[in-house]
């Protein structure tokens, strides 16, 4: 076989191999780009940070208001049902709903010790209801 390949043929094979290698390298760049952009589009990490902070700030605002407050927390732009919301000892924890071991993002809020908040986890809600009266507060 080797003997049959004359010089011109060998150069041709080499050129084809080079083109294949270049295509592989180009493909690597494209794949990395796509994978990265895909990871961004998923955006669950950003959503979790956003929700934990937004809900914690909302609870703070509700605590700062006197008397009874009943507030419906709903974000029509984001699918809240993808997440679960844990309220515990002055922290809002957000993680993916039904994904065991998913990284939970926490953000603190200031509890009023005289109006304690109920520790509770809400799984994949369409909306949250944040309630406060003279005796206690809850997120449902």
């Amino acid at each position, binding site marked *: 076989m080797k003997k049959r390949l004359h010089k011109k043929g060998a150069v041709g094979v080499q050129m084809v191999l080079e083109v294949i290698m270049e295509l592989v*390298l180009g493909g690597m760049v494209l794949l990395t780009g796509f994978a990265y952009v895909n990871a961004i589009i998923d955006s669950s990490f950003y959503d979790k940070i956003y929700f934990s902070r937004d809900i914690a700030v909302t609870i703070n*605002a509700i605590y*700062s208001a006197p008397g009874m407050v009943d507030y419906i927390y709903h974000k029509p732009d984001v699918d809240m049902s993808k997440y679960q919301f844990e309220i515990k000892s002055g922290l809002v924890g957000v993680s993916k709903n039904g994904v065991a071991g998913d990284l939970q993002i926490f953000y*603190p*809020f*200031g509890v009023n010790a*005289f109006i304690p908040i109920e520790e509770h986890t809400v799984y994949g809600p369409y909306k949250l209801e944040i309630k406060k009266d003279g005796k206690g507060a809850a997120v449902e």
Partner: protein
Amino acid sequence: MNKKGAIELLIWITRIIMTTVVIFTIVFLLQGYIRYDIDVFETETSIFANRVLFVKALNYVDGQGRLHSGVVDVAKYKGADISKELEKEIFYGGDNRYIAAKISLENLDDVEKKYNEVYYNQRLYNRDVEIYKAGLASGAGGVRGIVKSFYVLIKDGEKTQKGAMRIEILFPNS
């Protein structure tokens, strides 16, 4: 390996290095447009300051149990346990490394009258105040702060006078 082969190998190594550089450049450029950090400093400090104006630990509560927001009860303000009472009503956990404040009160009707400063989470305030004053606001060890001032009424027994409350809030980045 002959001379031509060595040159070819060198070219390919350069190409692979260049490809890696291009990949990292793409990732780096994309990262420049993505922010995972959501800054709630302004909102949180405003809410905190408003909360101080609504706490029973500091404000006047009448005989019917109604809280008079922005009417500072001097007896409470001068109380020995004011900081502890404040921390009960705005409780960020036993080891609050999140927010601290210094509250000062000025009597506008009687400027000669002086009131002590009241601290919310004094341990953290003392730890971070110098960092804040030095203007080191960015980075993980940085401390941001803001001063909020409000006109209030100062209720001293039966007497009510005009006053100003100044709340200096410190907010460590981590």
